[in-house]
């Protein structure tokens, strides 16, 4: 129940972002309690074994630092990696959706030109709708003061 937030910018390079993750539920959350999305016990063991070999992109020390900030006292690397992996997947899903949006826009443009676009740039234009699907509202200032 954390999917609603507000991000506002004061300037492009020096900004203060307020992300409020409060207890407001969106329509998607009701279906997520469905058992199809949860892990069995056996799958849990598989996941933990995977984590021993696979290091998430977020380094262990960094994740542990932010968890300590939140008050979690842990020496178990499995827990730290699990949280790091979940956070990585969270961001990865958003960026993947943005990628698909980018490709759709790109395909509609290149059907006219026929040239392959080599550089793929992630812009706020692609990110904003992706975030809006998850209930995170981002406001960007239209000018740099």
């Amino acid at each position, binding site marked *: 129940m954390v999917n609603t937030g507000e991000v506002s910018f004061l300037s492009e390079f020096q900004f203060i972002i307020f992300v409020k993750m409060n207890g407001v539920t969106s329509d998607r959350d009701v279906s997520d309690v469905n058992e199809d*999305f949860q892990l069995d016990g056996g799958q849990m063991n598989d996941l933990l074994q995977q984590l021993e070999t696979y290091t998430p992109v977020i380094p262990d020390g960094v994740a542990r630092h932010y968890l300590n900030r939140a008050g979690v*006292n842990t020496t178990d690397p499995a827990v730290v990696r699990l949280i790091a992996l979940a956070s990585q997947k969270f961001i990865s899903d958003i960026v993947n959706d943005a990628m698909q949006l980018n490709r759709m826009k790109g395909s509609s443009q290149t059907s006219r030109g026929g040239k392959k676009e080599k550089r793929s740039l992630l812009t706020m234009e692609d990110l904003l709708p992706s975030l809006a699907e998850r209930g995170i509202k981002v406001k960007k200032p239209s000018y740099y003061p």
Partner: protein
Amino acid sequence: MASEVLSPENGFRQSLTMAVAAICLECGFESTENIVLETLTEMLQSYLTEVGNSTRAYYEHSGRTIPTDKDVIFALSEMGFRNKSLLQYSRRGKRINIGQIVKTVDTSNPPVLQVGKSKGFPTYVPENHKYPHFPDPHSYIRTTTGQKPETDYVILREQASAQKRDVERALTRFVARTGRSHPLLPDDKNAFPLIEAQPHLIPYLNALLPSEHETLKLFEATNDQNNEQKE
């Protein structure tokens, strides 16, 4: 503004930004806008903190001080995260690794001396649990010691008389040993030592002189008389 940003905190933030950049690279983007990177970094930091907070709430609610994997799963479910997709995600092919942070040597705590064998867990706790072990049993398990007092009259009488005899004997031997003693048996000087009697030069003097208590009473009486005469 720059002075408010602590440099270790900044370092952690920068490594988060690098992680976000690696994720974008993995998804196929070759470059991003600066503002996008900052947004995603902030979101990642908030998400990590939020999951940490929820996990802490769950394990503290169960009365534990160390998180287990179940706590994390509950926290993620509460935030609307689809846990099942984690398994597939962890198995995916192309991955980008940005390397671990090189740590300075940790001063590890010396192991605490363990006295006795700590209690085992009940059978319904699974084998792969990560719960902390029980503390030393003497610190929280207490068995009362002592005997019930005797109530039988016969035994109590016997014990009382034996104690009285033992006390008298011990006391007399002590005084005889430490003071002047007179042996009972001429052969064995230490078997039955008796306290030596010390006769006074004038034996009847003690009976004639008043005791201290009587002296004090006499003194007070004469004082009262003198006071009355003066008035």
